[in-house]
């Protein structure tokens, strides 16, 4: 609690107001990310509308096991992140350090699972182009979206993991006070990446899988 005054940055004059401002600014950023991914989902929705049957066939060739594991991993990571975001301003150092570590680990677990899944997809030849195993041709469109959507999501997750590890290090080294607004906004970012996956999972693994 005593660190607060050291955290005030120009032009803010009141720490509580600065914290509110940082939160607000980050939510505006999240709104922009909603539009970014929203654009992608929009394109997917249009093409699914135009080629519903082909998209279903494509979806049947994604691996539900990997998808389910990944969803559970991210949901759990969000749980730990929530404890961090609540624990840090209350001064709970061990909760914060532990929570961030588990969160990062679960995130890495997601990326590893995804990597294995990608490997499997490649060995099944599911990269659009010559030699694509499925018909009709619009299944390639589905997999175009699959690779792009999961790829962009994975990049976002990777960035998130790096940020989590960064603040973990700074907190452990006592270079970042627990009251810092940075912790809350990294939490918001992490949850947002989780929310994106909550949309990706049904549209790439579930919708119409079993007619």
């Amino acid at each position, binding site marked *: 609690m005593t660190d607060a005054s050291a955290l005030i940055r120009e032009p803010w004059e009141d720490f509580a107001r600065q914290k*509110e401002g940082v*939160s*607000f600014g980050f*939510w*505006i950023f*999240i*709104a*922009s*990310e*909603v*539009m970014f991914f*929203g*654009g992608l989902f*929009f394109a997917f*929705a*249009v093409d699914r*509308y*135009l080629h519903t049957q082909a998209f279903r066939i494509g979806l049947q060739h994604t691996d*539900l096991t990997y998808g*389910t594991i990944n*969803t*559970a991993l991210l*949901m*759990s990571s*969000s*749980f730990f*992140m*929530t*404890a961090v*975001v*609540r*624990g840090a301003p*209350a001064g*709970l150092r061990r*909760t914060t350090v532990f929570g961030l570590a588990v969160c990062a680990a679960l995130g890495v677990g997601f990326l590893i699972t995804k990597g294995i899944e990608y490997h499997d997809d490649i060995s099944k030849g599911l990269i659009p182009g010559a030699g694509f195993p499925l018909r009709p041709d619009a299944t390639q469109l589905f997999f175009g979206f699959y690779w792009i959507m999961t790829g962009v999501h994975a990049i976002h997750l990777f960035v998130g993991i790096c940020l989590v590890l960064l603040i973990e290090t700074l907190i452990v080294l006592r270079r970042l006070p627990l009251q810092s607004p940075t912790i809350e906004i990294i*939490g*918001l970012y992490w*949850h*947002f990446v*989780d*929310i994106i996956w*909550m*949309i990706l*999972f*049904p549209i790439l693994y*579930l*919708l*119409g*899988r*079993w*007619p």
Partner: protein
Amino acid sequence: MHVWIKPAGVWIALLALLAATIGAAHAELGALSIALNLLIAGICIGLIGILFMNLARSSVLIRLAAASGLFWLLFLFVMTAGDYLSR
């Protein structure tokens, strides 16, 4: 301890919803399965947004910022739907 308890409740709910959505897909209900999948996804997103991201206790300003992204997407989806659905 208190920072873990309420989030744990949400976590269990999320995992239960995960099971439910897979079950709904397995149930072979056609369009209803799809509707359920999307509905459950919406509930999960709501839980994460409102409870994990703390929108429940945030200022009006922050809630407006959160809502504006979603609202603006409507312009993109609805007006383009007008094009594709009427071709």
